[in-house]
């Protein structure tokens, strides 16, 4: 088993190196997109699928991560140049690190925020939790728009150094995947699933459900923050409008499609949804050839995805993988 895992890991790494150096930038950008959304969806699935806490906040954490990384890797000179509404705060000008510490910082800031928010968030359950987290995600974006000294407001940040490439995004998605599996297959992961299945019964087993939920929330936020940082460096431009509820919605589709609680499913979901988004581009613009453009249907992709989500909830609520992992299936197969 261990050998197979190592083999898979090395194949994945070799593929990343090959793809980064040999594939055309457009294909690479799609792979990057899949990797980033994969990272975000994997971490989202921990809180939402594994621990069963229906958070709608990932957009907030991704935003935080994106801003922290962007502000850390942007040189002071371009910050002065870019901040149009107000001059940047001194601290913004002073902060500068290289890429890896910036990503780690993104994760840490998001995780610390998750810790602070867990106190109000986990006072409520179920759909109230959903609406409270939705609210926090929204408030974070409003702050990003209004704290112009720190974020340059609604105009966002441009010319972010493009340090990220497929090796970064691919490497981090591998790390995320391994960490998530390690969490799931530990007593903490078991406790998260117990909280999901029946919170009262978990308490009756002596589990401090608040802490278990907070662990899941913080871990999730950490990787969402890192993913946000990668996103900022990859796109080289960020603005509050990129972190609307739409982002959460896309992640939700990925994890529901893959199976709430299944990390392997999430990976496949990310490939299908992000690949599908790119592939379904023709729906939005059947106007590649010049001449007739009346047939453009913006948002048709999103219509397709919304219908897909509804159909899945109605007929295949468990997604592709249910809440099982690929390895669980092998186990069952052997039996």
């Amino acid at each position, binding site marked *: 088993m261990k050998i197979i895992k190592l083999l898979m890991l090395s194949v994945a790494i070799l593929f990343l190196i090959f793809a980064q150096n040999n594939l055309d930038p457009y294909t690479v950008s799609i792979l990057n997109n899949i990797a980033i959304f994969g990272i975000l969806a994997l971490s989202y699935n921990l809180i939402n699928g594994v621990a069963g806490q229906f958070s709608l906040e990932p957009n907030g954490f991704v935003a935080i991560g994106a801003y922290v990384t962007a502000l850390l890797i942007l040189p002071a000179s371009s910050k002065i140049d870019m901040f149009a509404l107000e001059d940047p705060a001194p601290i913004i000008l002073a902060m500068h690190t290289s890429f890896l510490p910036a990503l780690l910082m993104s994760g840490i800031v998001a995780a610390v925020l998750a810790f602070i928010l867990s106190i109000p968030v986990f006072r409520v359950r179920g759909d109230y939790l959903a609406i409270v987290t939705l609210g926090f995600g929204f408030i974070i974006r409003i702050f990003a728009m209004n704290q112009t000294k720190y974020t340059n407001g609604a105009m966002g940040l441009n010319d972010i150094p493009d340090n990220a490439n497929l090796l970064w995004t691919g490497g981090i998605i591998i790390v995320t995947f391994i960490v998530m599996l*390690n969490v799931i297959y530990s007593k903490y992961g078991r406790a998260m699933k117990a909280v*999901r299945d029946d919170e009262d019964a978990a308490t009756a*087993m*002596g589990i*401090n459900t608040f802490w278990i939920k907070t662990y899941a929330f913080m871990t999730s936020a950490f990787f969402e923050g890192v993913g946000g940082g990668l996103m900022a460096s990859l796109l080289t431009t960020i603005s509050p409008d990129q972190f609307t509820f739409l982002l959460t919605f896309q992640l939700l589709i990925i994890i529901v499609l893959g199976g709430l609680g299944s990390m392997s499913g999430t990976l496949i979901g990310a490939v299908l949804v992000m690949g599908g988004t790119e592939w379904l581009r023709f729906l939005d613009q059947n106007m590649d050839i010049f001449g007739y453009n009346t047939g453009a249907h913006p948002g048709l992709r999103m219509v397709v995805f919304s219908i897909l989500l509804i159909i899945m909830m109605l007929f295949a609520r468990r997604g592709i993988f249910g809440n099982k992992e690929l390895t669980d299936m092998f186990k069952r197969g052997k039996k």
Partner: protein
Amino acid sequence: MILELKNITMQFGGITAIDDLNFGVKTGEIYGLIGPNGAGKTTLFNIVTGNYTQTKGTVVFNHEELSGVKPNEIVLRGIARTFQNIRLFKSMSVLENVLIGFHHQANYTYFESILRLPRHFSNEKKIKKEAMILLEKFGIADLADTNSSSLSYGNQRKVEIARALATNPRLLLLDEPAAGMNPSETEDLSNIIKKIKTEFGLTILLIEHDMKFVNQMCDKVLVLDYGEQIFEGKPSDAIVDEKVVAAYLGDFEHA
């Protein structure tokens, strides 16, 4: 006395569910709580486990007062419970359900599990072994990898009790353990309960409707009606007690 309830009163929005109740459970006893539905038995369980905070009175467990102690901490002090309508972790296997009970006996931190440090492996191995031993005692070791929701009713009940035992309790609260079981399953269960009671040195407090079961199992019973205690004593005395018959067992004379 391992458990003492003193002057317990519980009110929900003006309605009194339990009214000034006093009783104690001796170490090593099997103590039965009986009474019609809505008499406040499950409420009493929820007070002992910390899920409800009583309006008045104190619960003393092992000479320590339990007021203000959170439900999950009460478990760590040695009180475990099962639920009236079996509440297993449905998405998990039998083994995993039991492992949840061993949560606090696995000694590794969150970071150790993320980094897969040696302590993670050694502890996981240890609790898995113990969990299998426990399952063997209930005769369901072969079901370890089965999903808990696909078990029969009787086996689900066993898993629930095994899971509670995994927390290493001194007092076990069983809420209608024999409900929904046929006579042979019931008998099987009562044997297991007796066995584990001696093996683990447990004290058991149980709620039950099946008088036969209660008769067989309990050293002492308390009959509740409308939150009030109407009888405490041996089960054989309870069935002939007039008040008990009238409130719970049924009125012979009525027509």
